[in-house]
């Protein structure tokens, strides 16, 4: 082919795309320039001066105010709700499915879908200011069962964490293998809330799961792990005589933290912890809970095996946790329930609890 044709082709394409990029940048400078705007948070408690033009979620993150988000701003998780009294503009179609009548009445909006264009007045739960980002060092990683690993993470020297037992952290995986981007998932904190310089996570391998495969195959001691948190409204209410705790698999994590919180604070609650698993090989932390049981008569640990092997020599409860619940819990009177685990198990247990007279307001859970 003629060299001049090649040159003309490349030249005209470069010119045209260059011209288009300049037009886009110019229009962006004109159209997307909202100048500096003021964000007033919680009626004057905090004031931020920020550059307009980006989503509220990322603008706030730039100011180190982390709003929970599981979809990274794609309007598919509905977690990033923030109260906006002023300056939000109309509700976008993308927000519609996530905003209930009550949400609308209390001016809640998806912060990832609202663009900062003018001065805004925001309502943000005080708890969220407690959320930080931590670059932790993985101090220990060990197998608790064949598919659950315990991660013990040291926070950076100059940072501490304050969380309520039961809350979770956001864990960010690095790109590995075929996964080309950072992905994040929620993991409950299993360590004591009195411990401020380390967090412990219990992570069960999900076959083909992106983050759990990363944790189980790519992580080793000394690696740096990015966490943010604490998040979540699964924490101790303590407005009852007895706490019924129910967990399956890695759902034990937040319950362990809750049990220690009650004990360390010397709270008067009785506790019964039903822990469901299939076989003996799925149980872990048995000695630890047996020890707590001995030292604290208020605490009862009830592991239940659904399908024990003959060689397991299982003497304890047999059958699904639901069977043990039916048998040991007579009514919902003066009791609160805390549940953690797979959606299937939780739904079955919650149904039984409701039949026993637990009102919705006394059942707290995190579905994994």
């Amino acid at each position, binding site marked *: 082919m003629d060299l001049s044709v090649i040159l003309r082709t490349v030249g*005209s394409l470069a010119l045209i795309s260059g011209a288009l990029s300049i037009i886009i940048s110019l229009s962006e400078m004109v*159209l997307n320039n909202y100048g500096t705007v003021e964000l007033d948070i919680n009626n004057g408690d905090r004031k931020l001066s920020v550059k307009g033009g980006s989503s509220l979620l990322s603008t706030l993150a730039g100011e180190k105010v982390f709003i929970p988000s599981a979809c990274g701003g794609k309007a598919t998780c509905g977690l990033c709700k923030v109260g906006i009294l002023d300056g939000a503009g109309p509700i976008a*179609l993308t927000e519609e499915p996530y905003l209930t009548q009550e949400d609308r009445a209390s001016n809640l909006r998806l912060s990832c879908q609202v663009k900062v264009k003018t001065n805004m007045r925001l309502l943000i739960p005080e708890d969220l200011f407690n959320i930080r980002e931590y670059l932790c060092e993985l101090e220990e990683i060990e197998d608790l069962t064949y598919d659950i690993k315990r991660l013990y993470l040291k926070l950076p020297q100059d940072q501490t964490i304050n969380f309520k037992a039961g809350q979770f952290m956001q864990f960010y995986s690095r790109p590995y293998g075929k996964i080309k981007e950072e992905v994040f998932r929620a993991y409950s904190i299993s360590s004591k809330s009195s411990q401020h310089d380390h967090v412990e996570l219990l992570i069960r391998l999900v076959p083909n799961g992106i983050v759990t495969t990363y944790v189980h195959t790519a992580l080793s001691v000394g690696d740096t792990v990015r966490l943010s948190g604490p998040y979540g409204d699964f924490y101790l209410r303590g407005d009852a005589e007895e706490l019924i705790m129910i967990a399956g698999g890695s759902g034990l994590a937040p319950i362990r933290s809750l049990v220690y919180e009650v004990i360390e604070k010397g709270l008067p609650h009785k506790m019964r912890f039903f822990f469901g698993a299939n076989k003996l090989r799925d149980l872990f932390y048995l000695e630890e809970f047996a020890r707590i049981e001995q030292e604290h008569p208020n605490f009862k640990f009830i592991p239940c095996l659904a399908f024990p092997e003959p060689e397991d020599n299982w003497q304890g409860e047999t059958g699904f946790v639901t069977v043990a619940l039916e048998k040991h819990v007579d009514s919902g009177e003066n009791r609160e329930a805390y549940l953690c685990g797979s959606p299937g198990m939780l739904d079955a247990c919650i149904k039984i609890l409701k039949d026993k007279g637990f009102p919705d307001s006394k059942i707290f859970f995190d579905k994994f």
Partner: protein
Amino acid sequence: MTPNISPFIIFFASIITSNMILSNFLGMCSYLSVSTEYKTATGLGMAVTLVLVLTTVVNWFIYTYVIVPLELIYLQYIIFIMVIAALVQILEMGMDRYTPDLHAKLGIFLPLITVNCAILGVTLFMVIRHYSFLQSLLFALGSGFGWWLAINMLAAIREKMAAVKLPPGVKGPALSFIITGIMAMAFIGFSGIFTIQ
């Protein structure tokens, strides 16, 4: 050579007898995926019409005053696509700034439209058929209305059929294809009123 057809014939023909979806089967992906609800279908139809008119007009000028004089015909596809993408982006920013209400309704559809083949289709038909400026303008407007009409009809029918018990094999996209096929056959009935191709 510019064909000797009244722009108004082109306008009505592109709605009824040369409908972008029902006789050209262009722009099917967003047509099939965003037609579960009448309200959103209306939003998408409106956005497609808007973008169609805008991009066709701009592409007409680019074709007549840049592509032809510079003998860049062999690059026209790439140039048209770049222009469409850039225009949609600017349109979105402008809408967000000056008509936030409209942006709240149509904003999410705009990126989707960049890759809607009806948009490029109209530009290419305009070139192949040597339309004049006025003919192109009304062709784009008509094609937009035609696309809008088709997606609204499909959405309305799908909403009505939501309550109907169907065998699993014809649910979802399969049903949409069947409905579209029947609508297309019904539209054959209009052929003969006027033709443009």
